[in-house]
C-alpha cells in the first residue's frame, strides 16, 4: 500500500532551511496567535523525492501512452512550451509591476490575442478566464450585459442542445439564465424545427460547440445562426472543439458572437492532472465593450493594460489570466503557424475518421456519416449481447496501457464512448488501439468475466465509488 505523506512524517524531520537572519524576533500578539500549529508533513528530502516520484509513476499521462479522451484533446504537449514557460523573465515578474517594466509580457498577450482573434474570426478577446467553464460564464455575462444595455430584460433564456457538455447548462445557470434544452435531430445535429420552436422573445442566446459533442459538424449552422439572431439572441461558441476546424472555418464566419477557447486543449498546454487551463473569450465587435477589465491594448509601439471600461462586465479573475499558460499557447502557435494549425485540424479529423472506420462495425456509431476530430461509438449492443458495458471496455483498455475514451458522455447516447485521437498520434498507435478494442469485443463474447475483472495490471483494481460518496473520507486524519 502506498503510504500518504503524513504516514512517513516524523516529528522534527525537515528538509528546507532558511538563511540565518540578523533581524530581531518580534512577538506575535497573543490574542491573534494560532493555538495549535497545523500538522504539515515532516519528511526528509530523499523521502519527499521518492514519495512524489512514486506518485508520478502511478499517474498516466500523454507521455505514457495513447489518451483518446473525447472532448479533451489530449495531444502532445511540446517540451519547448515548458522551457519558454520557465524563462525567468516570465516566471519572476510581479503582476503589479508597471507596464513599462512588463512590455514583453504584454506584447506576448497582445500578440496571442491577435492571433487567436484571427483563428476564430473574432474582433477582440480577453485572456482572463481560467478555464473553459470560466470562459463560458464570462461570455454569458457579456451576453447578459449586452441585452441589458439594450433594455432587453426579457432575454433570460439560454438554449443548449441536449448533446452539450455539462458546463454549458451549468454556466448558463450560474450566470443567472434559465436553460432550455434543444433536442438533437436524427442526424445528430440540432433539430432546426425544435430550435425554431424554442426561440422567442426570451432567447438570450444559443450555446453550441461545432462540431458538436458527437463529433458531427452542425452543417445547418448558418440557418441556426439566422434563427437565433432573428430572435434577437446571440450565438455562443464553446471552443472545446476548435481542434477540428482551425484554418477550415472560423466561428466568427459561422455567425458566432462570443467564443471561449480551451488553450489546454487545442493549443497544447498541458492538462496538469486537471488544470490549470485557460479559457480566453473572444467576441464580435458589438460585444467588445463588455469584455472584462483589464484588457491588454497597444498604442503605437507600447502595450498597456486598459483598466477603464465603463461597460465592462468587470473583472472575472485576479490579475490577467493564466499567464504562463498563455506563454505555452503562444509558443505553440508560433511553432505551427497558419499551415501547421490547419494541418493539425485536418489530421485530427483524418485520425478520428480512420479509427471510426476501423471500429464502426464492432462498436455501433449512432449517427452515420463522417465525423470531425472525434466520434462517439456505443457499447450498447455489446452490453445487450454480452453484458459488457462501456465502463468494462474502458477498464480493459487500462490493462493495455491505453487511456479509455470519455465514457457515458454525451448523455444522449447510451453506453457512449467518445474517442478523440488528436493529430499527434501515428497510424501505428491508432491501429494498436483499434486492435485492442476489437479484441476486447471478441473477449466480451468469449470470456466476459475477464473484462468484468479488469483492470488487473494496475496498482489497484476497480474502486468502490458508491461507498466513497456515501461515507465521504475527504482527508487523512492525523493521529498524534
Amino acid at each position, binding site marked *: 500500500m502506498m503510504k500518504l505523506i*503524513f504516514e512517513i512524517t516524523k516529528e522534527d524531520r525537515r528538509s*528546507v532551511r532558511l538563511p540565518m*537572519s540578523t*533581524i*530581531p*524576533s518580534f512577538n506575535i500578539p497573543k490574542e*491573534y*496567535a494560532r493555538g495549535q500549529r497545523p500538522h*504539515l*508533513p*515532516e*519528511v526528509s528530502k530523499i523521502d*519527499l523525492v521518492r514519495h512524489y*516520484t512514486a506518485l*508520478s*509513476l*502511478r*499517474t498516466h*499521462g500523454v*507521455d505514457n501512452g495513447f489518451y483518446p479522451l473525447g472532448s479533451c484533446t489530449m*495531444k502532445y*504537449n511540446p517540451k519547448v512550451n515548458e522551457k519558454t514557460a520557465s524563462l525567468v523573465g516570465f*516566471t519572476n*515578474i*510581479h503582476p503589479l*509591476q508597471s507596464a513599462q517594466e*512588463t512590455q*514583453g509580457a504584454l506584447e506576448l498577450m497582445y500578440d496571442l490575442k491577435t492571433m487567436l482573434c484571427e483563428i476564430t474570426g473574432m474582433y477582440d478577446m480577453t485572456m482572463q478566464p*481560467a478555464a473553459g*467553464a470560466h470562459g463560458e*460564464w464570462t461570455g454569458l455575462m457579456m451576453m447578459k*450585459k449586452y441585452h441589458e444595455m439594450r433594455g432587453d430584460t426579457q432575454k433570460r433564456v439560454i438554449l443548449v442542445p441536449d448533446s452539450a457538455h*455539462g458546463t454549458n*447548462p451549468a454556466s448558463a445557470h450560474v450566470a*443567472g439564465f434559465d436553460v432550455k434544452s434543444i433536442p438533437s435531430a436524427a442526424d445528430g445535429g440540432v433539430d432546426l424545427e425544435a430550435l425554431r420552436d424554442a426561440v422567442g422573445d426570451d432567447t438570450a442566446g444559443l450555446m453550441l460547440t461545432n462540431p458538436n459533442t458527437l463529433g458531427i*459538424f452542425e452543417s445547418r449552422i*448558418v440557418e441556426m445562426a439566422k434563427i437565433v439572431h432573428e430572435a434577437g439572441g446571440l450565438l455562443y461558441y464553446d471552443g472545446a472543439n476548435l481542434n477540428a476546424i482551425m484554418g477550415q*472555418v472560423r466561428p466568427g*464566419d459561422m455567425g458566432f458572437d462570443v467564443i471561449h477557447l480551451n488553450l489546454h486543449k487545442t493549443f497544447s498546454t*498541458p*492538462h496538469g492532472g*486537471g*488544470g*490549470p487551463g485557460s479559457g480566453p473569450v473572444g467576441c464580435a465587435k458589438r460585444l467588445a465593450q463588455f469584455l472584462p477589465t483589464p484588457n491588454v491594448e497597444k498604442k503605437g509601439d507600447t502595450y498597456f493594460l486598459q483598466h477603464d471600461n465603463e461597460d465592462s462586465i*468587470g*473583472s472575472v*479573475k*485576479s490579475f*490577467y489570466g493564466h499567464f504562463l499558460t498563455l506563454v505555452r499557447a503562444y509558443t505553440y502557435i*508560433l*511553432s505551427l503557424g497558419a499551415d501547421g494549425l490547419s494541418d*493539425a485540424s485536418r489530421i485530427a479529423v*483524418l485520425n478520428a475518421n480512420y479509427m471510426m472506420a476501423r471500429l464502426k462495425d464492432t462498436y455501433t456509431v449512432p449517427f452515420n456519416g*463522417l465525423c470531425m476530430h472525434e466520434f462517439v461509438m456505443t457499447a450498447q449492443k455489446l452490453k445487450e449481447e454480452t453484458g459488457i458495458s462501456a465502463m468494462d471496455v474502458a477498464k480493459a483498455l487500462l490493462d493495455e496501457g491505453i487511456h479509455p475514451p470519455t465514457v457515458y458522455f454525451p448523455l444522449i447516447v447510451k453506453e457512449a464512448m467518445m474517442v478523440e485521437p488528436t493529430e499527434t*498520434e501515428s497510424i501505428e498507435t491508432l491501429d494498436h488501439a483499434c486492435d485492442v478494442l476489437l479484441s476486447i469485443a471478441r473477449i466480451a463474447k468469449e470470456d466476459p468475466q475477464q473484462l468484468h475483472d479488469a483492470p488487473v495490471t494496475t496498482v489497484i483494481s*476497480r*474502486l468502490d465509488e458508491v461507498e*466513497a460518496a456515501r461515507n*465521504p473520507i475527504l482527508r487523512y486524519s*492525523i493521529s498524534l
Partner: protein
Amino acid sequence: MTGYIPHTNEDIQKMLDVIGVDDIDALFLNLPDAVKQKGRLNIPEGRSEIEVLDRLNELADKNTVYKTIFRGAGAYNHFIPSVVSSLASRSEFLTAYTPYQPEISQGILQAMFEYQTMICELTGLEVSNASVYDGANAAAEAAVMCMTRKRSDIAISDAVNPQIIAVLKSWSKASGAQIRIVPQVDYKTDMDAIAGIMGDDCAALIMQSPNYYGVVEDMQQASDITHDLGGYFVASVNPTSLMLFQAPGEYGADIAVGEGQPLGNPLAFGGPYLGFMAATEKMMRKLPGRIVGQSHDKEGRRGYVLTLQAREQHIRRERASSNVCSNQAHAALTATIYMAAMGKRGLYDVAKRCYDNAHYLKEQLCKIDGVSCNYHPFFHEFMTSGVDGKKLNQKLSDQGILGPFEVESSLLWCTTELNNKDDIDKVVSIAREVMT
C-alpha cells in the same frame, strides 16, 4: 506535414483508403461552402524551435526581473525549493488530465487527497476541495455556497483585496444579489458597522485577514457578530500567515478561502495561481469543484477517487450550483509538494521570517521624519504614508529593487523570507534620502 504530426504521405493515403475517401478535403464536405475559410489564416508561418526560442527569449528579456522585491498586494515573492518544480514537472503529472479513471490515476488522486488534508490543517476546517481558479473566485464561490432564497446578499469588508471585491461584484450581477460593503477605518474593518449593514437578511460576511493593507483583523469578533445575525462567516486568508495567526476554524469561520500562490507557485505575472476552499463538514455537499475521497478496491486496498460528483456540472447540468470543470490541479500539486518540502517547521520559519522582516522594516521606516504608519497588528504587509511613492520607487528601481505598491497616495509594503537585513536597511536609507 508541419507541426507535431507523425504522418507520412503513405500513412495518409492508407488511412484515406480505409475511410473510403479520396482526400482530406472530402472529410470537410459537411462544412457549408458559404462560411468555409478560403485563404490561409493571416498569422505567420510556423517557425523552427530555434526561432521560437529566440522570440520567446526576446520577449522575456523585455521584462524587468527584480531580484529584490518589496511588493505584495496579492502576489508574494517566496522562495521555492528546487525540489518542488523538479517533482511537479514530472511529465506524468503534467500531461495527465482530470483523473476520471482512478486505477491509472492513483498518483494525482493521492496528491490531491494530501492537498485537501493540508488545506484542512492550515485552515483548521473539516473539508476542502481540490482547488478553484484563484483566491478571488474562491471567495465568490464561497458567497454562492452561503446564498439562500431568503438571504442572497453578501456583505464584504472594504478592506478586502479590491480584486476580490471586483470579482465578487461581477459574480453578483449573475444572480442579482447585492454586495454590501462594510467600511474600513484606518485600514481596518469597522466592526461597529457590521451589524447595521448586514441586518438579518445577509447571507454572509466576507472578511480578509491579513487584509489588503496587511492588517490582522479581529476575525473572532466579526465571526461572532455574523453568526449572531444568522449569517455565514467567510474568511479570506493568506495561507502562510496561518502558521502564526489564528486559523479560520479557531474563530468559527464557516468557510475559509484564499489565494494559494504563496505556496510554491511563482509570481508569473499573475498566474496560474490557485484558489483554496475549506469549510465545515456541514457545508461539504455545497463545496464546488473537484473533491477527492478515499475508497478501496475489491481486495480492500486503499485508493482514491473523485467523489461527491452528484454536485457537479456533468451530472447536475443546469441544476449545478457551480460550473467548475478544469481546476488548478497542477498548481495545487505544486502547493502540496511545497508544503511537504517546507514542512511544519519550515513553513513556520517562513511565516515568522516574513513577520520579523516586515516588523523590522516598518519600525525603521516609521523612524523617518515625515513617514506615518498605523499601529494595527499585521503580518508581512503594512501601509505608510507621507512618502513620494513615484520618486521612491524610481530610486529603488535604479538599485534593482521593486518597491512598495502605491495605493492612492500611500504605500503598501511587503516583505518575505527572501528579503534580508541588508536589503531592508538599503531600502530604509533610500527612503530616508527621498524624505530629505
